[in-house]
């Protein structure tokens, strides 16, 4: 059963407000009272927004959609952590029971040069789409495929491919990295494809183009601090970055 806690808590939010991409943003403070600890963080924001609308104040803009931790839309930094204090979690999966009565919670957008702020907590992550465009796929036109069982894949390899493919493209890895590197994001896709026989045909071109695009988009490089792995809501392992580097070396020198 749900652990017995307070029936409701009162908190203070310090939220980054910025009316558009060019405006100068600032933190605004909002008290939120009577928060149900079983409600999610985003439901708490919904309640606050509802009351802002009633006061004729524009509600806080934030990206969100599935609210199940899989679409990758939600993106804010909560008390200094992308996706908040819980590991292996997206913002939409945070629940207010993690916070105490009287807490001040600081909420700001993901901050990285390749992710410009659009409004309040909403950012532009289209650079991640462009990295995928550069080669994050297998070039298999519809209708070409042989029977799915033509190529058995070792369970170990399939499992590693899956663990990489679980990336939800939220960009938390970029937001937390002091270099704003997108290496974990990119490595997840390169690694998934490199582990599968059907992905190996294009492996060299893929990794070269994707890395070049990442650099052109203004993401930094990796200095192995491992911060990305810690904040990744899908706990994607740093080992995939090691594989990315192997793939890149292989593509450049073999």
């Amino acid at each position, binding site marked *: *059963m*749900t652990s017995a806690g307070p029936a409701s808590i009162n908190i203070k939010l310090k939220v980054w407000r910025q009316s558009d991409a060019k405006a100068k943003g600032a933190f605004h403070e909002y008290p939120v009272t009577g928060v*149900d600890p*079983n*409600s*999610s963080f985003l439901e708490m924001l*919904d309640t606050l927004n*509802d009351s802002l*609308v*009633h006061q*004729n104040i*524009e*509600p806080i*803009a934030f990206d*969100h*959609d*599935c*609210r*199940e*931790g*899989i*679409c*990758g*839309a939600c993106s804010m930094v909560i008390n200094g952590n992308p996706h908040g204090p819980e590991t*292996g979690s997206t913002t939409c*999966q945070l629940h207010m*029971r993690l916070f105490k009565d009287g807490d001040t919670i600081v909420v700001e957008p993901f901050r990285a040069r390749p992710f410009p702020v*659009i409004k309040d907590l909403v950012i532009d*992550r*289209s650079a*991640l*789409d462009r990295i*995928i*465009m550069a080669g994050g*796929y*297998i*070039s*298999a*036109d*519809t*209708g*070409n*495929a*042989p029977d*799915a*069982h033509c*190529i*058995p*894949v*070792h*369970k170990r390899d*399939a499992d590693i491919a*899956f663990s990489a*493919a*679980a990336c939800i*493209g939220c960009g938390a890895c970029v937001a937390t990295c002091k270099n704003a590197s997108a290496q974990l994001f990119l490595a997840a896709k390169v690694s*998934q494809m490199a582990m*599968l026989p*059907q*992905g190996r045909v294009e492996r060299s071109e893929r990794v070269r183009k994707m890395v070049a695009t990442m650099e052109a988009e203004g993401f930094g490089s990796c200095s192995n601090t491992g911060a990305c792995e810690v904040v990744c809501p899908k706990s994607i392992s740093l080992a995939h970055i090691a594989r990315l580097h192997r793939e890149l070396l292989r593509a450049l020198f073999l």
Partner: protein
Amino acid sequence: MSPTPAAPATPDRSHAAKQLQWLDDETLCLIPQSPGGRLEDKWDRHKFQLKLISPANKTKFSVIVVGTGLAGAAAAASLAELGYKVKSFCINDSARRAHSIAAQGGINAAKNYSNDRDSVFRLFFDTIKGGDFRAREANVYRLAQLSNDIIDHCVAQGVPFARDYGGFLDNRSFGGALVSRTFYAKGQTGQQLLLGAYGAMMRQVARGGIEYYPRREMLELVVADGMARGIITRNLLTGELESHAADVVVLATGGYSNVFFLSTNAMASNATAVWRAHKKGAFFANPCFTQIHPTCIPVHGEHQSKLTLMSESLRNDGRVWVPKTAGDKRTPREIPESERDYYLERIYPTFGNLVPRDVASRQAKRRVDEGRGVGPTGIAVYLDFADSVKRLGRKTIEERYGNLFEMYRKITAEDPYQEPMRIYPAVHYTMGGLWVDYNLMSTVPGLYVLGEANFSDHGANRLGASALMQGLADGYFIISATVEHHLASAALKPITVDHDAFREARAAASAKTLRLLNIGGSRTADEIHRELGQVMWEYCGMSRNAEGLGKALAAIPKLREAFWHDLHITGSGESLNGELEKAGRVADFLELSELMVLDALSREESCGSHFREEFQTGENEALRNDDRFCHVAAWEYREGLRARRHIEPLSFQYVPLMARSYK
């Protein structure tokens, strides 16, 4: 209904005449254009008979695809691969975030890799029966045939399906079937399939085959000279209304479960695109067929924004039960085996916990109505894994469902390895949608509708793991063939966005936005939406009766009135404005909901998800009336008048009509 035996909204041209014939002064008979011949040969023959366009000429044609879920992304990719100029629109900041991403359990295919005597015919049979004989045989057979091609294609794309120790693809079981035919990638199958389709789409964006428009919402369909020729979109960042012209429009915009406010759909999932198309002449089929999924996390409080599904695959290893005695307040582990009622296993010994969704949901509701519900609210039943953990070990259960258990723990703060999950049905999927013929064309020529947005293949109840199959069959394999035929035969005139039809549609969209912004009332869109949801859940949810539906028919116009007089929106129409977006969607839900109620009221039978309390067997199972209702109801929009009900008769030549039994 007021008798106005005028021409239908769709102009009577050669195409429409083929699709629509008058049965009497009031009612049209919709002709699905299913090809003749043996069931097994229909699709092959049809593909041969559809006209071709040479590869060089394909590049002269343009196609608009709205939506980038499984159906939309697959359609955009496969059409661009063939050479068409595609424009793809999505509501999110990236195509990869479409709500197909949240599908968990798996995708069906008739591969028979499990050697349990599965076949295309058996998948076809199970789907027709699961849909309670309210789907079209020819469509469903084609779907079952294409299921195998989908698996092949997705593996070629690098979709990391679960594999066994020999390196071959693993299968599991889903409701409504006695074979294991569900391919899966942990509890993230939708994500993996969508990322495959998204990758294919991004590849075409890179090579220039697709113009990609994220953060756009379709506000109007443009019908020019009787043909769908474009759309009006709102750029959600700038508020700008944009006009896009093409030779064909494809809608793959998903279902309308969010009419209920609380559903498992994503927050932005909405019915605006299909509803706008409906108002331009596309008939809406079986709107009352909404799927209530049995295994969702129960509602916890009044500020809840959405519901979370726990995959049906959990019913492979989880056992559903409630206490035998009403009002038993002991914790689940204190209740001994002999005092538990594993009611699905008791009532349906053959299918047990794997009965179809509609059956499992209704039985859960019945237990709660009997006072045997569990948990703090009493509105839940247990889904218990204790036996499976004992039998298979925690590691195996973790491998199969790890992410689902984790998700449950995060939401409820309870550990499902220790305590049974508490679950309750929630709105999840809509079988109804825009009516389409065998070619997936709506009653508006040149307007095609794919995936959940159409009504086609699931009848009155969809089987688990069949939505992904249908979205991808429509998108990868069907639409490219049928659109090609239309383009080759329709003799389309060139069109630009200066055409009057575009100007009118743009003006209508602009007027609606302005009207919403200027109401100046006191209530938020969410507040009114939540109220609508309560009306729909109460009267048009898991079980319905004439009296309740009548109440809903009285309540909805009042809500609409309240909305248009007392709505309050902040901000302007010229920037990112979430309140304005929500309001536009709620305005359409307030109209669609009424059609759902009308449809539920006029279908005086129970079938699949549509359970009318007046029509049930002695054992409380759905009682169909095949004499009166063995048809699809397709509704025609009439400005200022009540919608008019037309029908597509259904005939069953290969699966004889029978009472569905899962005992």
